[in-house]
């Protein structure tokens, strides 16, 4: 394998990893505060896809369509909290989990009924969908754009969490929700905030995701939510750093196996990736950067 190909694939792996990390952060955000997985998270990515699709058809430029998509993602995330989480705040863990599944199924079927069960293509602008050539290097613009946008978004998120009062409230609630409430952090506000940030990250990640696959289907949210979920598990549950590490590891594994495995086995790449995930968890059950579960008050 030539050095060029190795570098190109390394950039691809970093790019995919950063995208998984970004998406996983959005899912981990809600998990860290509430201790619950939002299985309707993938539908946020689908909402971004369909918003972009309709916006472009209405003649809206891609950049603006992307921003609209992110806004819809935030709104749907807040609605998920309002409909599936808030009324069940005092209900059992299982009840809320099923409510998020119900939300996911509802949104998928809404798309099937209101739009179409069939896939639709999205014309990604050539500016993104091109290849950068430097000498013998050929790198897809989208890979670079994905990497830059993901890293900048994560940097801004760290700044928000570390430097603002709202960020401090989220970190406090993630560390121990009851203690945060005791200290005057309003439960509803911090939960809404976590869903808002989650929707924003799913929105940005969703735009990059849609640009990558260049099409939409009602069930398109499955792969992103599953990947985010696995990334969180690899990294360590309830730990934002873990989501980022897990996302990069998962992306790296996918690209690595694509390069290394013979073409005839490619349809089974997911199985191989999951096998490696199982091995990682067998060795480190608490995840790569996870700590042993701390008791909450």
């Amino acid at each position, binding site marked *: 394998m030539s050095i060029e190909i190795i570098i190109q694939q390394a950039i691809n792996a970093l790019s995919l990893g950063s995208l998984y990390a970004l998406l996983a952060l959005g899912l981990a955000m809600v998990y860290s505060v509430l201790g619950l997985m939002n299985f309707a998270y993938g539908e946020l990515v689908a909402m971004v896809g369909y918003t972009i699709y309709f916006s472009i058809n209405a003649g809206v430029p891609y950049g603006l369509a992307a921003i609209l998509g992110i806004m819809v993602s935030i709104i749907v995330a807040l609605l998920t909290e309002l409909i599936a989480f808030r009324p069940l705040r005092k209900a059992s863990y299982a009840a809320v989990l099923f409510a998020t599944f119900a939300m996911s199924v509802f949104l998928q079927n809404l798309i099937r009924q209101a739009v179409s069960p069939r896939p639709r293509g999205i014309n990604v602008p050539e500016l993104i969908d091109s290849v950068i050539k430097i000498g013998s290097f050929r790198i897809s613009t989208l890979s670079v754009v994905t990497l830059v946008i993901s890293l900048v978004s994560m940097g801004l998120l760290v700044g928000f969490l570390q430097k603002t009062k709202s960020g*401090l409230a989220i970190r406090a609630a993630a*560390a121990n929700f009851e203690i945060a409430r005791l*200290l005057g*952090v309003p439960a509803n506000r911090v939960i809404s905030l976590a869903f808002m940030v989650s929707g924003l990250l799913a929105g940005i990640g969703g735009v990059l995701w849609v640009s990558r696959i260049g099409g939409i289907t009602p069930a398109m949210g499955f792969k992103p939510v599953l990947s985010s979920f696995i990334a969180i598990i690899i990294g360590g549950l309830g730990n934002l750093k873990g989501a980022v590490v897990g996302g990069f590891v998962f992306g790296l594994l996918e690209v690595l196996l694509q390069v290394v495995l013979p073409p005839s086995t490619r349809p089974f790449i997911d199985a191989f990736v999951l096998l490696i995930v199982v091995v990682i968890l067998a060795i480190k059950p608490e995840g790569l950067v996870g700590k042993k579960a701390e008791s909450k*008050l």
Partner: protein
Amino acid sequence: MIETQELVAGYGPVNVLQKVSIKVQPKEIVAVIGPNGAGKSTLLKTLVGLIEPRLGTIRYDGKPITGITPEKALLLGLALVPEGRGILSGLTVYENLLIGAYVEKNKKIISERISDVYARFPVLAERSNQIAVTLSGGEQQQLAIARALMSAPKMLMLDEPSLGLAPNLVQKVMDLLCDLRADGITVLLVEQNITQALAISDRVYVMSTGKILFEGPSAKFIGKNEELEQAYLGGVS
């Protein structure tokens, strides 16, 4: 200051508190003692709004405050130092203090309060940027109390502050509570360490299985630990 009437509260199908009536006067130190599972922690959590009472009333300065949220309780001047201290992992000492003043919007007041607690607890000033869970047990207890003081409470409630501390550190915490009372803060102390609780409190409530068994001036019970424990056991069986 604060008064409950026939308070009933609990979790799920269980009523942990069964008609609990207590009264705390301004600038008193009142102790609540009793065995594990008596409902002492539940009582404190109900007073600060973490648990909603099912029946009964809570009055603060004569006004009913039954069912208020923890943030409103803080704004009224009720602060709780929780059992096990509740130090927030991943946050520094400074950030733990900052979140203690979450309900205060004025940044100048917040930084004044930070200076005040640093003057009272010099060790916290030294460790300002250290991750708080790396502090020793005694330092964590100081941080937990300092954090509660960040909301400038009129009444401080403490849930077993002596738990897990060496005897000399327990003495330090008790001295601190006396200092706070001298500064005009009312103290409601839940303790299993009967001797210490009786030594610093004005009045004591003895609780078992969700009920107040009896109450009275602490001086009356000093040296009668065994009788008190007998009373618990009677309540338990």
